[in-house]
Every structure is written in structure tokens, then in C-alpha cells.
């Protein structure tokens, strides 16, 4: 899932201060699971902004809306009636959702209420861990299901750097060395030999914005384009 954290309240309040009617738009998928931008969080933020506006003598109204996914066309459409009534939309979706909302409703100013942090897993109640950098060239088969791109600060692809010390990383003695974890995992499953293969350098062309079409839909979209 995509993990995000709410922006500092002051930043949000300042960004929305100039708008009279603000729609606080939540998203019911990833950001709801990470307790940042779901319907409840949108309600709480709207209540906070409303109190702050009154304390600062600002005539503002905050409406709450929430759709299942802001990154999906048919769900996003459900916000249209509320957006029509708003002077600005404060989106609590991830970066993808905020951008799609801005693209679909280009006439209304769109404000970001969260910082999208990473793709990760829910480690415990209220705790999330980064697990994937979305690098488009997955080596997890070779590395025992442990990602050196996201867990190693240097993104080492062929074994640890010289800073690995007794299983810990030189950047932080509390942090596990990703490659120590990888070797232990591979040893346990008898696959250490796989590390003999050299992983070639990254193809940095992936810095371009990505787009993918499912093979089953290739014909449909090539015909239209």
C-alpha cells in the first residue's frame, strides 16, 4: 500500500486560508488504511480547520467528502457535485490521487494535505515500514524477498558495502544491514549460491514518468491512439 503522513497543520491552514469554501477530500483506500486521509481523518481535519478559522476570525466553511479511490476515474466523479460548490479542494489522497483530482477538475485550486512517504506494509497498529521503491526492475527473486533498493541506504545491488558492521548499517547502528538480512535469508533457504550472479547497473531511463497498459488491453488502446 501507499503510505502518507498528514502535512503540518500550520502549513495546511496557511494554504487554505485564502479560500472561503474548502472541500476536504478524503480517499478511502491506502491513505485511509494508514490513518492519514480517510473519511474520518478528513472529518477531523475539517473540524480542526473550522475551529482555527473561527479563532482567527476567518469566514470559512469546510465541507467533507470522501471517495473510494481518488486515483480512479469513476470514483473521482462522485466528488463533482461537492467540488462545484467549493472554492478549493484540500485533498488527503496520495500524490497520485491529488494529481488526478487536479487533472480532472482543472478549474478549481487543489491543495495537498499529505506528504506521500512510501510504498510499505502495515507492521503493527499505527506502524508502517517502507518495503518498495517502485524501481521497475525487481531483484527480490535473487535477494530472498528482501529489497536492497529500499532497505539499503546506498541501494547496493551486489552485496554489502564496506560499512556493514556485525549485521548493522554504518548509517545507523540500530538499522539492520539489508545485505546481512539477505545473506541470512538465502542461507536459510539454501540459495546463497544465487548471489554469484552479478546484477547489472540500474537502467536510469526509468526516471521518465511511467505508463503501462495491460497486455490484454494493448489492442484497444493502440487502436484509439
Amino acid at each position, binding site marked *: 500500500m501507499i503510505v502518507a503522513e498528514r502535512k503540518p*497543520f*500550520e502549513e495546511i*491552514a496557511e494554504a487554505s486560508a485564502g479560500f*472561503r469554501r474548502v472541500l476536504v477530500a478524503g480517499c478511502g483506500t491506502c491513505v485511509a488504511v494508514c490513518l492519514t486521509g480517510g*473519511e*474520518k481523518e478528513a*472529518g*477531523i481535519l*475539517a*473540524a*480542526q*480547520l*473550522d*475551529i*482555527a478559522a*473561527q*479563532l*482567527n476570525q476567518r*469566514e*470559512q*466553511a*469546510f*465541507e*467533507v*467528502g*470522501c471517495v473510494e479511490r481518488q486515483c480512479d476515474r469513476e470514483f473521482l466523479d462522485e466528488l463533482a457535485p461537492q467540488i462545484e460548490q467549493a472554492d478549493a479542494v484540500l485533498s488527503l489522497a496520495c500524490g497520485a490521487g491529488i494529481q488526478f483530482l487536479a487533472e480532472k477538475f482543472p478549474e478549481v485550486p487543489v491543495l495537498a494535505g499529505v506528504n506521500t512517504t512510501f510504498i510499505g506494509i502495515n507492521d503493527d497498529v499505527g506502524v508502517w515500514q517502507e518495503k518498495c521503491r517502485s524501481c521497475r526492475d525487481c531483484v527480490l527473486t535473487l535477494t530472498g524477498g528482501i529489497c536492497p533498493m529500499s532497505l539499503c541506504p546506498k541501494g547496493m545491488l551486489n552485496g554489502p558495502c564496506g560499512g556493514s558492521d556485525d549485521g548493522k548499517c554504518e548509517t545507523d547502528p540500530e538499522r539492520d544491514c539489508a545485505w546481512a538480512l539477505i545473506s541470512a535469508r538465502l542461507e536459510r533457504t539454501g540459495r546463497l549460491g544465487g548471489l554469484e550472479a552479478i546484477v547489472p547497473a540500474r537502467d536510469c531511463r526509468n526516471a521518465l514518468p511511467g505508463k503501462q497498459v495491460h497486455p490484454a488491453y494493448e489492442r484497444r488502446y493502440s487502436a484509439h491512439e
Partner: protein
Amino acid sequence: MGDKYEPKILALICTYCTYTAADMAGSMRLQYPPNVRIVKLLCTGKVDVMYLLAAFRAGADAVMVSGCEIGDCHFLEGNLRAKERVAHAKVLLDELGLGGDRLEMFHIGASDAPKWAEAVQKMTRRALELGPNPLRGRAMAAPQAASGRELST
């Protein structure tokens, strides 16, 4: 209402412990300020951050949440959840400028009527020190007040 500031304090309290203590305080004829308005909940685990913010939007000068003593919750950990939510709501109140001191969590056992009276006295003193909630009389009347959709909490 005269010029004298009489704080309005909302108390969200659990039926098993604090409400019993408050009831006993009455039976014992214990004296405490009449500024508190009690809302009895089955368990403080029912308390939601939205309720707390709604109370301040409606003009409450202070809000107290009071559940069972730690370890004594009839629902095992409802009071622990309330404690965490109150702590979080205090941060939210600090952020928006109203101040987290207007909100407090208490743990009062069913037989501890004097502790309830003390808690109300403490919150009343604090509400007097902090002065009236600036949203008093304004929040509910404001035509532009946020109409946040009801949450199914």
C-alpha cells in the same frame, strides 16, 4: 447570562466506574462545582476524537473524559484507547490554537466518589484560568460552520 464567566465543562464518562462514582458523590452529598455536564457512555472506548472536537466547536470551555482505573475496564482496554485518543486530541487542539489543556483524561473507580469531586474541581479551576472558549456562542450560530458529514463511529 451575566458578565461572570461560568465555565461549561463536558464530561464523557463510563457507566461502570466513573458514573457510579459520580452517583455516589451525590449520595455522599459531596460538594463540587455545578459547571459539569455529564454524558454517560457505556465505555470510554466509545470516545472518538471527533466527539471531542465537536464539543469544542459547540463552545465547551473544557472537556473531561473519565473511565475506569487502568486495568479495571469492563471491556478490558476501552479506557486505554480513550487515554490514547485524548492524548492525540490534545495535540490536535494545540495545533489549531485552542490548547490541549482544555481537555483531560481521568481514571476514577466506582467507589471513588471523592476523586470524582476533585477531578471536577480541578477542571473547573483550569477552565477558569484558561478563560472562555473563544468559540462560545459563535460556533453554533455561525451560518458558515463546517457541515462535516456524520461519521458512523
